[in-house]
């Protein structure tokens, strides 16, 4: 199943399309069989357990956070940023390669007005649902089946954004 990758101009590439309004895409030169993706599932499982056990998926904890009455969520997000920051600095400083030997690539995010308008809209929704996209998956997994409705609505919201994207200010 090994394919030879033809170089394509970046501007027309599929990657350029996927990069629109996204943080988390890049183009690894390597192709793997599908089951290699299970290494992401494995970490996801650990992540999901932490989400539930530290009550990050709790609507109550999000209320406390926005009411400034508990340090818990600030502690979680703050620790995550510090650990992430140190990790990224170490990777850059020592030029640490991926396990496949590739150089680590972190795409740069460019500013547009979407971060302001979209960010505000997401914040408003976050305080209602008590969940950002990650916790939505975890709430459903933890047995709060009615959150399937919230999830479907979020999915629809993403589609509607895609449909009207060209008409929105950026």
């Amino acid at each position, binding site marked *: 199943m090994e394919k030879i990758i033809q170089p394509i101009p970046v501007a027309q590439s599929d990657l350029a399309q996927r990069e629109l309004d996204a943080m988390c895409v890049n183009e690894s030169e390597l192709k793997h069989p599908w089951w290699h993706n299970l290494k992401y599932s494995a970490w996801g*499982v650990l992540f999901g357990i932490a989400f*539930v056990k530290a009550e990050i998926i709790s609507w109550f904890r999000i209320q406390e956070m926005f009411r400034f009455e508990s340090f818990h969520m600030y502690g979680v997000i703050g620790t995550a940023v510090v650990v992430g920051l140190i990790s990224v600095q170490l990777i850059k400083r020592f030029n640490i390669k991926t396990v496949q030997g590739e150089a680590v690539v972190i795409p740069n995010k460019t500013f*547009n007005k979407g971060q302001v308008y*979209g960010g505000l809209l997401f914040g408003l929704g976050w305080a209602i649902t008590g969940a950002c996209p*990650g916790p939505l998956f975890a709430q459903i997994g933890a047995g709060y089946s009615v959150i399937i409705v919230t999830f479907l609505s979020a999915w629809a919201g993403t589609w509607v954004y895609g449909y009207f994207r060209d008409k929105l200010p950026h």
Partner: protein
Amino acid sequence: MLELIKQPWPWYVAGALIGLTVPYLLLVGNKTFGISSSLRHLCAACIPGDVKFFKYDWKKEAWNLFFVGGIAVGAFLAATFLSDPNPIVLAEGTQEYLASKGITDTSHLLPAEIFSWEQLFTLRGLIFFVVGGFMVGFGTRYAGGCTSGHAIMGLSSLQWPSLVATVMFMVGGILMTWFILPHLLTL
């Protein structure tokens, strides 16, 4: 040991684990951490319609769907085998405020007074599930990321647009919590 794991985890344990997701994804597959993109990949994969924004090879981003699938499985395992029978311990101020709005059931992670199927077809339910969910899905994509993509991955890699987005998330959340939600809760 198992008893210790079953208790609620402190913020620094969960925070460190979530932070380690950043180097894990970078080093095992050169992936940058983000969750809201999964919703977009699901659009690209499943929803028909001639929308340019969803015309790309979503299979190249399938790792993201495997990751969020793992989150759901992990949450299931934690809720099934590691659950803590005690009610959630809330800050006193939050508890009193919510009680004044008729929300007193802290036996689950989500208040049963709002998050149940019976509530879905009420005006409040419609806002909490349908409107709230829509804003999360629309807003995160418009912003180009959510708490993971911007607040954690973006800030970790010192990207200032992510700081703007994170500040706006907080502004939106605070406005909703202090000025709008008090009215929504009593609908």
